[in-house]
């Protein structure tokens, strides 16, 4: 087994162990009924579990299909068998130091978010003694200081990471899924369908997205789920547009004609043949969008209409720091720093993905 797989398996084992040992802490959150807590607690647990399962399945499959050393006329070729273009790209990605660094930063932030209940030494929402602990500067006890209500700012930042990251990632999943399907249908069927669907996109694009978000947030109850849907459903248009372009050129390729000649229904042609081939730029833009979404969520929360206190999010934390910037600089600085680091990491990740998934080199035999 390769070293990287071992690393990942080790990490997964540690995670499982932590979850098992301190399950009491997580179970308490799991049973919290409020929708905000639902996303912030369950999603952050579901994601690593899903990733772990995927990695495990992949590792098992690789072991099973490991090329046996055989003497044949084409041994050199045979060694490269079963390596999909995406696997080749991921390999190239792993060689990109900056992008891998960004990936590790993101992984670390996610880990902090998941383990927030264990790492935070204070209740993020409890206001104990506002007079004694008000605006304490960073110290050993409170590494990020405290806010005007005397809440431990590090604890809030950890729980805020859950909210900010889950909202952004979920919103991107919503936007990319919807945009990809929408754009594929438009590009594949073409003609009238394409025209009608893309004119709708034009109309939505003509409307300033941020104001649309503001309006929708104003109209609907601003809980986490609503925020995810609002952010997601106002930002799928870009994805839809370029996926349509990709599909338009892909569908002229011979293997799509071949798929049609084999009698595949439209559904299978779109989902099995077109979308997987158009996925490379989607991944890049999804990574870029996560950065944008974190920014958008922070912006809405900063304006006081996104995540409402006492639920912490990096956005409303910065907003709270704005009022106290001259008396307690740490209140705005730390969440702001976390925001910048996260957005920067996602942008670097996107850059790395773009280089790795460059279609000109994607089909290169193998590294």
């Amino acid at each position: 087994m390769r070293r990287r797989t071992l690393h990942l398996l080790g990490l997964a084992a540690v995670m499982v162990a932590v979850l098992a040992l301190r399950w009491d802490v997580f179970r308490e959150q799991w049973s919290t009924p409020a929708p905000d807590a639902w996303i912030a607690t369950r999603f952050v647990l579901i994601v690593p579990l899903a990733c772990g399962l995927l990695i495990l399945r992949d590792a098992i499959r690789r072991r099973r299909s490991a090329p046996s050393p055989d003497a044949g006329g084409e041994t050199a070729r045979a060694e490269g068998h079963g390596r999909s273009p995406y696997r080749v790209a991921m390999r190239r990605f792993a060689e990109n130091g900056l992008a891998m660094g960004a990936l590790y930063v993101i992984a670390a932030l996610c880990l902090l978010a998941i383990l927030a209940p264990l790492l935070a030494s204070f209740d993020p929402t409890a206001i104990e003694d506002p007079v004694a602990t008000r605006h304490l500067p960073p110290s050993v006890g409170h590494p990020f200081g405290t806010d005007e209500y005397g809440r431990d700012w590090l604890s809030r930042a950890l729980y805020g990471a859950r909210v900010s990251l889950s909202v952004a990632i979920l919103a991107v999943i919503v936007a990319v899924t919807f945009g990809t399907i929408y754009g594929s249908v438009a590009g594949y069927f073409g003609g009238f369908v394409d025209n009608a669907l893309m004119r709708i996109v034009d109309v939505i694009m003509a409307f300033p997205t941020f104001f649309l978000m503001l309006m929708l947030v104003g109209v609907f109850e601003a809980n986490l789920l609503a925020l995810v849907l609002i952010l997601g459903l106002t930002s799928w248009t870009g994805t839809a547009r370029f996926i349509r372009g990709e599909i338009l050129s892909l569908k002229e390729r011979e293997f799509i004609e071949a798929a049609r000649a084999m009698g595949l229904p439209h559904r299978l042609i779109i989902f099995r043949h077109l979308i997987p081939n158009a996925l490379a730029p989607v991944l890049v833009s999804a990574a870029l969008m996560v950065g944008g979404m974190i920014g958008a969520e922070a912006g809405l929360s900063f304006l006081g209409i996104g995540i409402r206190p006492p639920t912490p999010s990096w956005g409303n934390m910065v907003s709270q720091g704005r009022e106290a910037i001259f008396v307690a600089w740490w209140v705005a600085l730390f969440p702001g720093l976390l925001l910048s680091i996260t957005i920067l990491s996602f942008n670097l990740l996107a850059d790395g993905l773009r280089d790795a998934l460059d279609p000109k080199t994607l089909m290169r035999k193998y590294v």
Partner: protein
Amino acid sequence: MLLRVEDLAATFFLDEGELRAVDGVTFEIGEGETVALVGESGCGKTIVALSILDLVPSPGRIVGGRILFRGTDLRRVTPETLRRVRGGEIGMVFQEPGAALNPVFPIGRQICEVLELHRGMTRHEADGEAIRVLGGVGIPDPEKRAKAYSFELSGGMRQRAVIAIATCTRPRLLIADEPTTALDVTVQADILDLLRDLQEDYRMATLLITHDLGVVAETADRTLVMYTGKLFETGPTDRIFDDPYHPYTNGLLRAVPSLGSGRGEPLRGIPGSVPDLLRLPAGCTFHPRCELADAECAVRFPPTRTMGPARECACYKATAT
């Protein structure tokens, strides 16, 4: 009769005008028979093939005729039925094997997909069958190759994989559109042998589209000669090769360089070039390039005449010998 194409016409509606790519083509293919469709590039061979499965790309469209497959007109069936025929009863092999395979799926999966769809197999059954089929088309070490991606295979292997996909459902008819054009000469012979073996094993008819007369001579029972969207001459392959009626067929045959011919002897092509399909000459479309043409040829396209047993020819000058 397995397939009968009657008076097929397909037109491309371009900005420059209407391009008639296929014009009144009529032919038949019997069970298990190999029929070759030959002609120069751009004469509408591929469009005939695509028309059979109703796959003529936009802005082209079939504008007339009937395509009777086992007695039913494929132009009048529901999309659902047509989908079952495509891949299930009529398989198709494309010219460029690299481009006809999906680059992001292993070739085994692409066979499974067709088997699951047309033979109702489960994923597990299909996996096994795919490996068997790959072995059947002469791919060595099929368990391992089933997991290979198209860019990991050589041209010949790719074409074998494409043939495996097209024939895994044991179709009644295989349409092979220039199956050997993109391959090395040595590999060409292997692929032709493979097609012939499969055809015998599965009792499958083949419509072979090619511009390589050597391939035709070797494989086809009957030959259709096509030019500017029309059939010029049809008949049994050996008889056409021995004694071509149409001056165009004659020209094609003379243009084939043979290994035995003396060096330094000039190759004899057909003078002129294939006319622009948007500006076809009046009368017989071949008359500007024809040695025998006279005033009559420039006025009206010659009717198709029956010339002896199983042979037809569209030329005023053709005479049965």
